[in-house]
């Protein structure tokens, strides 16, 4: 592999446990260990641990940090309190998506933004270029590593490694300075799988200790390391968007079904607000929908969607979905075909295969 690829502090661990390494967003990352389906099921039924150290942490602080971020982000950041996390996006003036991200609020003047690895340079530049007096933007990614522990047993397993009562961390809240296996970490109840679980951030030096401790504590409970392959099938079943697929420069959050996260009427003006308001007022040209195959075949990213031989859309993610044991996809279709139950066709190589529009998400965990 190319020499410019980056490695996380857990790289050697992955190689030692026979993780299959691939290039992803400029990093050498494990795509699978025992197998995508087995890892996927482990997360749904027990728990799995992911190395997500490639994620990018950008610290935004200063007396004008909130004002600055309100202008940059589409969600209303004033709605969250200290120690709360918010899912949000950055948009271009035309409403297209720069990236989606999580914002961690330490206090009114101090925030941590977690963005996608594949967008590191673009995102950092986008934010840094807008830096003004009263705001400090620092990329802390080189010092911070991250693992995610996801699945119904996540809390039980992680609780063995800390005196902090994890049940007090509610969904989309976090706690700073939690000791996990003796290592100080940020712990948030967040994730990208559709399961309960935690994301754990710490300095590079401490991450291996946490990783090993979680695997040891979870060994008898069926906790396994999980690669990027299952990370994708898990998030896809739960209809969590992936940059470059469901959202991107040419795709706005509204048509992507993320209206809930866009504070169109936010008092502070934000980048893309006018364009998004206009889209909201004029009606969507297309919508992101769920597709389930009727004929045999797997819809894949980029395949055309047809109705009566006319192209009406395109697949953004598609796969065999292990939890459903079905072949399903996400894709954009012209709005008139977005209604549940609509029969359309997917162009799979030379064949036109029947599929129908179904409700999203494909999978929702029982609470």
């Amino acid at each position: 592999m190319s020499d410019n690829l980056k490695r996380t502090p857990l790289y050697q661990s992955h190689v030692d446990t026979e993780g299959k390494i691939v290039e992803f967003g400029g990093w050498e990352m494990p795509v699978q260990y025992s197998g995508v389906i087995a890892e996927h099921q482990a997360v749904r039924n027990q728990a799995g641990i992911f190395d997500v150290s490639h994620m990018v942490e950008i610290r935004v602080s200063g007396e004008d940090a909130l004002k600055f971020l309100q202008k940059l982000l589409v969600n209303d950041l004033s709605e969250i309190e200290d120690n709360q996390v918010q899912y949000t996006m950055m948009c271009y003036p035309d409403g297209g998506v720069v990236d989606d991200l999580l914002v961690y609020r330490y206090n009114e003047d101090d925030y941590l933004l977690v963005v996608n690895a594949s967008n590191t340079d673009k995102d950092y530049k986008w934010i840094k270029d807008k830096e003004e007096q009263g705001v400090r933007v620092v990329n802390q990614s080189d010092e911070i590593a991250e693992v995610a522990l996801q699945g119904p047993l996540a809390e039980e397993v992680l609780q063995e490694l800390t005196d902090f009562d994890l049940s007090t961390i509610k969904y989309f809240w976090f706690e700073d300075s939690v000791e996990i296996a003796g290592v100080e970490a940020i712990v948030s109840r967040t994730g990208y799988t559709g399961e309960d679980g935690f994301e754990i951030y710490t300095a590079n030096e401490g991450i291996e200790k946490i990783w090993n401790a979680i695997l040891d504590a979870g060994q008898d409970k069926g906790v396994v390391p999980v690669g990027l392959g299952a990370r994708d099938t898990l998030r896809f079943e739960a209809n969590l968007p992936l940059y470059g697929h469901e959202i991107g420069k040419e795709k706005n959050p509204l048509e992507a079904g993320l209206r809930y996260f866009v504070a169109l009427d936010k008092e502070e003006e934000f980048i893309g607000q006018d364009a998004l308001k206009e889209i909201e007022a004029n009606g969507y040209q297309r919508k992101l929908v769920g597709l389930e195959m009727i004929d045999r075949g797997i819809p894949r990213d980029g395949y055309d969607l047809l109705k009566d031989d006319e192209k009406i859309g395109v697949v953004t993610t598609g796969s065999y979905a292990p939890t459903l044991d079905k072949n399903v996809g996400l894709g954009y279709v012209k709005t008139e075909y977005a209604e549940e139950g609509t029969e359309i066709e997917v162009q799979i190589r030379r064949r036109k295969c029947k599929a129908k529009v179904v409700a999203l998400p494909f999978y929702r965990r029982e609470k």
Partner: protein
Amino acid sequence: MEILEGLYYSEDHEWVRVEGDKVYVGIADYAQNALGDIVFVEFPMEGEEYEAEESVGVIESVKAVADLYTPVSGEVLEINEDLYDNPQKLNEAPYENWMIAVKLADEEELDDLMTAEEYKKFCEEEEE
């Protein structure tokens, strides 16, 4: 990685078992391992004729789509329909689950394929 004696192998990691003028084609252990969990197969129609190295079908794992090539020319006599419902058998036992059977049109094409020993060497070189 398992390589079975008595079979011919292609550079695309297919195996060929010869029974008279009928040959069975499957994928080698190396191929199933590289693909990962196989969840879908697509076959040619019985009766169709193909040239050696032509794409005759598709094998899909959760993450990847790969072509199935026929290592020899000839008419497709049979397809292994069992794999439609049980594609994971290609992972579990790649040498016990043939994919297509072809009527061998030109016996000399077998000389272009590798023996088990040659294929073993080929795989080792690929790994490097």
